[in-house]
């Protein structure tokens, strides 16, 4: 049948391309010719001819459309847009208080989210600038001992070289030392500087911009030193001038500047100089021992000609037996060490290890604040939605008229979302100004260098995206709701909101307050935990404790130093130790006692100390401290309670103990004291007397209230005995605070955010209450006429909102409890989450909400019924 007709596609094509006013005649003519052709030459020819003729009509005259008689005007024409904007502006200007609440709420929310977003962006940019980033890995150890597994970044000093020799997958490998502090002297200039030692491949692996010198050979010679531009500028005036110059370190050895590099700000580890590895190993011979795991090892995987990087998992499997092969007695002593790899770029955000495996880290804070940013923005959006829908009565007539005149639903939705976008853009401007003002404070709090990156496209995309998203979310519900109104009913004046709309609005309020409650409870718990840390008895007294490094001549003149110092004002006692009371120095497994299970290895934190150790730290001791009266004390040991329990002697004092192969006796047991942060449990500790102060920290206890005199005494003596080194010291208190820096920052930020969240929520509540009071003016008037008292009316108006807030408390409490107990799991010593925290947070929320509402409800209740009822 179809074969007797012209080709369908040709007909359709003609219909599409041909101008409508010509279509009928052209199609008719073509059809007529088709019929004749079909009769004369057969259908196939006719069909072909038809198609050919259709195509021949691709001429300008046939394509050109005739202007219609009634052109349809687009709703996006300039006139309409002007009208939309005018109406939007009139609405903003007419309801100044509501608009202010909306804009202020949104601006605060956006400012807060923007700050957090900038911070998150900055966190992700840390260490991301290395060209070889994806191929860089940290080699770490997983140590199996005493039934435990622990991950540690410490590796033997010779590991890097060995790895590079054994595994062809590794292109470069370099060790990295701990942070060292050396005194630099160039001419008259004398200063303490912090830096590291690293393997020769260091600058080939890490893309630190080299300003002068060559990166490849910078660390080849043992007396080479690469310094940062900051140091070059300070000591020599410019990077070029620094090249080839020599620097004297610790008044002993000279080093030649081989390269000057620039240390980017977004680096997780910063160092002002890099010394060569050969030099470092020479100064620390003990690091050659494969049993000492104290240094970091970094590798770069090889990339083959096709750009495929070696598989880190397979390399990891191959590396597993390496440590065992270098430590023959490891298996004998019942422990094992396996090497594993962590991508270098992950190391900053994923730094925590639990039972030997990766478990969170900074990324948790990034996620946490990301969620907070979304929450706060959401709370601000909800304000907007609530106020807009509540006030929709006022706009209902406009919607009705627009609909009658022919506006489609889509256009109304567009209009209302557009209005939301206008408001959001206004808020964004305010938010940007706010963030600009707050950035310096925020930077000093978080120790960052965040700036607006106006030149960066992603910054603008973020801003635009945020504005659009906020506008869309905030405008969505009001737009959908208002555009759905029935024009007939609206214009008759009878609008009634369904229970659906009211429930939705109430749901939003509950949601808002639940989020605020979460933040309040979180803040309280974080603060309590920080307070717990600050006030917890650590087992030693950290007030009035000062640390000095025993460097230069101070170590050799320690005896004189101590003797003189004790005679000077402000000083109580002096001792020295490995590490400090706030930071452990290192651990050893080489402790033997009678009855020890030969198959287990117990790690002891150790410290070599001076006389007066317990007296200076003010640690309680059972038995006695080291004393000059006992010549045998050179092989006497002090242990802590945890160590005593682990060893298992019933009466430990006087019992034999062997440390590093030297048999001796336990002379005293000190009470457990916290030498690390409270994240970690107290570990077994052992102290032994040391004859020399070399490499130790000198610990000075001042007379109470005489810190100033003590510092003056210290400085005078330092200048006499150790003139080549600048005087520097640390307060134990500050060192201790430093341990909890991130918690303190988080606590402060959480506090601000919680305040903001509740403030924005209350702004919304204030608006809603004002609206409700306005709606019920007549009802209140009638009630008053009939004899209702002011308190009863206030109660009536308040109870609706209070119910919602109470519901929010009920919902958020278990959530907050769950979240906060997860957070507390990170601490070995922590507070209990008690019921009163919830009660306080709840009371706070109710109180603030009540205060917010009562202003409006009291105002409404006090109104003279005559004025409110007269209008009708």
């Amino acid at each position, binding site marked *: 049948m179809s074969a007797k007709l012209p080709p369908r596609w040709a007909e359709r094509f003609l219909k599409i391309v041909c101008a409508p006013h*010509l279509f009928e005649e052209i199609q008719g003519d073509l059809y007529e010719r088709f019929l004749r052709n079909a009769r004369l030459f057969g259908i196939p020819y006719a069909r072909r001819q038809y198609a050919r003729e259709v195509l021949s009509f691709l001429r300008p005259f046939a394509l050109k459309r005739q202007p219609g008689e009634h052109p349809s005007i687009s709703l996006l024409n300039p006139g309409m847009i002007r009208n939309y904007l005018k109406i939007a502006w009139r609405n903003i200007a007419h309801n100044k208080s509501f608009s202010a609440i909306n804009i202020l709420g949104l601006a605060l929310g956006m400012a807060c989210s923007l700050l957090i977003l900038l911070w998150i962006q900055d966190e992700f940019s840390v260490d991301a600038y290395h060209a070889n980033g994806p191929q860089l890995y940290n080699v770490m150890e997983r140590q199996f001992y005493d039934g435990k597994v622990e991950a540690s970044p410490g590796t033997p000093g010779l590991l890097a070289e060995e790895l590079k020799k054994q595994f062809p997958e590794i292109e470069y490998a370099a060790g990295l030392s701990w942070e060292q502090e050396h005194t630099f002297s160039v001419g008259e200039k004398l200063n303490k500087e912090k830096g590291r030692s690293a393997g020769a491949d260091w600058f080939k692996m890490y893309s630190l911009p080299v300003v002068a010198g060559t990166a490849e050979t910078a660390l080849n010679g043992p007396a080479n030193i690469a310094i940062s531009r900051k140091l070059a500028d300070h000591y020599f005036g410019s990077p070029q001038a620094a090249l080839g110059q020599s620097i004297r370190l610790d008044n002993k050895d000279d080093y030649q500047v081989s390269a000057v590099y620039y240390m980017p700000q977004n680096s997780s580890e910063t160092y002002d100089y890099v010394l060569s590895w050969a030099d470092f190993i020479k100064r620390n011979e003990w690091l050659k021992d494969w049993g000492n795991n104290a240094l970091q090892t970094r590798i770069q995987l090889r990339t083959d000609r096709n750009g495929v990087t070696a598989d880190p998992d397979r390399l990891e499997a191959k590396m597993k037996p390496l440590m065992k092969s270098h430590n023959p007695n490891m298996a004998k002593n019942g422990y094992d060490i396996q090497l594993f790899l962590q991508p270098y770029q992950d190391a900053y955000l994923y730094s925590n290890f639990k039972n030997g495996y990766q478990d969170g880290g900074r990324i948790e804070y990034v996620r946490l604040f990301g969620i907070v940013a979304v929450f706060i923005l959401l709370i601000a959006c909800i304000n907007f939605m609530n106020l807009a829908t509540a006030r929709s009565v006022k706009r209902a007539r406009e919607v009705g008229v627009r609909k009658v005149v022919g506006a489609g639903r889509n256009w109304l939705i567009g209009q209302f979302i557009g209005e939301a976008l206008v408001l959001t853009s206004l808020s964004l401007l305010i938010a940007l100004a706010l963030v600009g003002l707050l950035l310096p404070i925020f930077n000093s709090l978080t120790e960052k260098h965040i700036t607006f990156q106006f030149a960066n496209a992603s910054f603008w995309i973020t801003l635009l995206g945020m504005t659009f998203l906020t506008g869309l979310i905030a405008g969505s519900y009001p737009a959908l709701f208002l555009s759905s109104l029935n024009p007939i009913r609206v214009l008759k004046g009878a609008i009634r909101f369904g229970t659906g709309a009211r429930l939705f609005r109430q749901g939003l309020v509950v949601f808002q307050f639940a989020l605020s409650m979460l933040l309040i409870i979180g803040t309280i718990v974080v603060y309590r935990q920080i307070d717990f840390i600050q006030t917890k008895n650590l087992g030693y007294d950290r007030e009035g404790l000062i640390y000095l490094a025993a460097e230069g001549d101070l170590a050799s003149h320690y005896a004189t130093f101590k003797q003189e110092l004790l005679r000077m004002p402000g000083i109580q006692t002096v001792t020295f130790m490995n590490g400090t009371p706030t930071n452990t120095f290192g651990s050893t497994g080489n402790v033997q006692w009678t009855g020890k299970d030969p198959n287990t290895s117990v790690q002891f934190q150790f410290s070599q100390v001076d006389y007066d150790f317990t007296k200076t730290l003010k640690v309680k001791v059972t038995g006695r401290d080291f004393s000059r009266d006992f010549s045998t004390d050179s092989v006497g040991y002090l242990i802590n309670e945890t160590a005593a329990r682990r060893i298992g002697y019933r009466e430990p004092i006087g019992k034999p103990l062997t440390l590093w192969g030297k048999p001796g006796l336990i002379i005293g047991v000190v009470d457990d004291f916290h030498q690390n942060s409270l994240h970690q449990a107290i570990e077994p500790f052992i102290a032994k007397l040391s004859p020399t102060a070399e490499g130790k920290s000198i610990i000075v206890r001042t007379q109470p209230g005489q810190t100033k005199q003590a510092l003056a005494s210290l400085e005078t003596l330092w200048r006499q005995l150790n003139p080549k080194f600048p005087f520097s010291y640390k307060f134990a208190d500050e060192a201790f605070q430093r341990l909890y820096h991130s918690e303190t920052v988080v606590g402060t930020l959480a506090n601000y955010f919680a305040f903001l969240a509740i403030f924005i929520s209350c702004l919304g509540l204030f608006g809603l209450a004002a609206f409700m009071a306005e709606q019920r003016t007549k009802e209140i008037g009638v009630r008053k006429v009939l004899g209702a008292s002011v308190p009863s009316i206030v109660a009536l108006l308040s109870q609706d909102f209070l119910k919602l807030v109470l519901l929010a408390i009920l919902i958020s409490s278990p959530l907050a409890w769950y979240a906060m107990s997860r957070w507390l799991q990170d601490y070995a010593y922590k507070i209990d989450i008690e019921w009163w925290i919830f009660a306080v947070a709840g009371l706070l929320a109710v109180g603030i909400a009540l205060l917010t509402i009562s202003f409006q409800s009291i105002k409404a209740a006090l109104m003279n019924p005559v004025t409110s009822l007269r209008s009708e």
Partner: protein
Amino acid sequence: MRRSYLGEFEEVVLLTVAVLGTGAYGVAITDELDRQTGRAVSISAVHAALHRLEEKGMLKSHLGEATAERGGRRKRLFSVTILGSRTLHDIRAVRDQLWDSISPQGLPAVSL
């Protein structure tokens, strides 16, 4: 006197419309052209010329009745306007004048 320029094809189409009288529409004009001049012209070219002539005001058109052989579609019927007629006459006058002015030796003889 200023007059609109007519192309050769337009002139032929305009004349054909005059020849066909009341039944001048696309297909008929195409067929008549074919028959009278032996030129195989495409229907779209004819339509284009008709369209142009109408724009110049030399043709006018109206839609006719629906006819069965066109699948119920209407034809557009064309007729020559006064301007069209005038233009044709002018062209003819110019030609006649030119013919009359040719001396007998002016054209080489053509055997008929």
